């Protein structure tokens, strides 16, 4: 551990050391690296540049849903299932930062204690630090670090979400949305937002009354309606009939979809985004019921995504990362002292309605080219 303690003055050197140690299995180096990533230091950037080419092998799975729907408990149950198959699993669990004090209570580990000392389980809590999309701004980078360090599965658990925190879908290969029984009627299921980005919908707390009914409603509205949009009318009628049937097939529901969430890739006559056709599963995370079926569903979704040349999730992730970095870089240039005067002057002009905001933005962009 000695090499870690000596702080080389050069961030590039420090980054190389940390990255090499982390890839080599040094968990403390990995933890330090994640701290650097969270703090967006020069060391983190240099390390990420080294690590990125080694990433891309892990299955990145986003877990999202309302507060109290059981995300952390589900993650814990998934860890058990994945470890039983010998795969290494990393977890990034995000909880909100206080907008008032900047403090945070990170409580997701409470539910993840069973594998606390397993070397092939690495759990990291992250505060959202003012970022509003359900993750921290650095969560995707942290997941890439775990990916590069050889974790087969990386679970990204969001803060408790409402209806529209859909950012996780860009950060993950597969997005799991949790619902609790009796969370709402069928109209909730057809609202735009979170459920639209789900590759798999999990009705957790399956031992509660109403779980079957909630799953049936979700299946009817999400799966059947998505198929009504497709050309196959005969299929549509059959699915509607199946969807209207109250859940009768035990814990493993919805496994009839051959390629979940991969709605008609390729053959669409009109080039318009198609709704996903998520699988709807029922789990009871506290007992493990339905968890093997969930893992099987995750594996199927991953295999389907790999079959596509570059999955749309990966492309969305690339775009989110590059555009965030681009925005940071532009921001940094605008914040440079030599531009500060012009920037302030333009802001003042916009504030006083002397200049419209589009013109101000154009002038700033022109300034960056000079």
């Amino acid at each position, binding site marked *: 551990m000695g090499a870690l303690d000596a702080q080389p003055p050069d961030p590039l050197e420090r980054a190389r050391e940390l990255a090499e140690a982390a890839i080599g299995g040094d968990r403390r180096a990995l933890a330090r690296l994640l701290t650097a990533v969270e703090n*967006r230091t020069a060391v983190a950037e240099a390390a990420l540049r080294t690590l990125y080419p080694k990433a891309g092998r892990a299955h990145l799975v986003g877990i999202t849903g309302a507060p109290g729907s059981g995300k952390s408990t589900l993650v814990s149950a998934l860890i058990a299932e994945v470890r039983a198959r010998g795969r290494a699993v990393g977890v990034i669990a995000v909880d909100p930062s206080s907008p008032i004090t900047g403090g945070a209570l990170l409580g997701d580990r409470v539910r993840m204690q069973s594998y606390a000392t397993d070397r092939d389980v690495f759990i990291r809590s992250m505060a959202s630090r003012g970022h509003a999309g359900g993750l921290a701004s650095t969560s995707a980078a942290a997941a890439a670090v775990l990916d590069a360090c050889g974790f087969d599965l990386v679970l990204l658990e969001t803060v408790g979400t409402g209806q529209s925190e859909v950012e996780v879908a860009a950060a993950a290969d597969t997005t799991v949305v949790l619902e609790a029984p009796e969370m709402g009627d069928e109209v909730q299921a057809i609202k735009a937002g979170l459920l639209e980005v789900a590759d798999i919908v999990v009705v957790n707390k399956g031992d509660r009354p109403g779980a079957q009914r909630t799953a049936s409603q979700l299946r009817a509205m999400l799966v059947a309606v998505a198929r009504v949009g497709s050309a196959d009318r005969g299929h549509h009628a059959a699915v509607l009939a199946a969807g209207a049937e109250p859940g009768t097939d035990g814990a493993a529901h919805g496994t009839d979809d051959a390629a979940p969430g991969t709605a008609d890739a390729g053959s669409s006559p009109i080039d318009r985004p198609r709704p996903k056709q998520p699988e709807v599963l029922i789990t009871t995370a506290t007992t493990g019921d339905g968890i093997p079926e969930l893992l099987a569903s995750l594996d199927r979704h991953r295999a389907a995504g790999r079959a596509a040349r570059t999955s749309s999730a990966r492309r969305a992730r690339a775009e989110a990362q590059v555009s965030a970095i681009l925005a940071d870089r532009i921001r940094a240039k605008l914040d440079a002292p030599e531009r500060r005067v012009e920037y302030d002057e333009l802001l003042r002009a916009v504030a006083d309605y002397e200049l419209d905001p589009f013109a101000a933005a154009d002038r700033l962009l022109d300034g960056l080219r000079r």
Partner: protein
Amino acid sequence: MTDRPIKVLIAKPGLDGHDRGAKVLARGLRDEGFEVVYTGLRQTPEMIATAALQEDVDVVGLSILSGAHMTLVPRVCRLLREEGQNDVLVVVGGIIPDDDAGELRAAGVAGIFGPGTTIGEVAEFLRANARPRT
């Protein structure tokens, strides 16, 4: 680079189920601007040391009301040292007799907070003594 919040692990080693104090402190430190990882009840020293390592915390706060502190606390300190986490500040809260304080400090405990300590006092102590953050 940025002035990131101090990250604190609040854990309850051992078997007593009295977690009100730990939860109140976790909440209070949140309000003081700390990032608090709360791991809950019945933690072994190994679980606490692993969580401290994975979370890369600056401070480990142990809450014990069972009387088992002379066994559990030195073990947490030793495990942290073995992992190379020498710079992590360890503090203890709960029912700790004055006679035990010297031995706990010798084991590596930086601060001991008994009943009546305010959250402000704890926060001030942590800000003054936590490792410098990079």
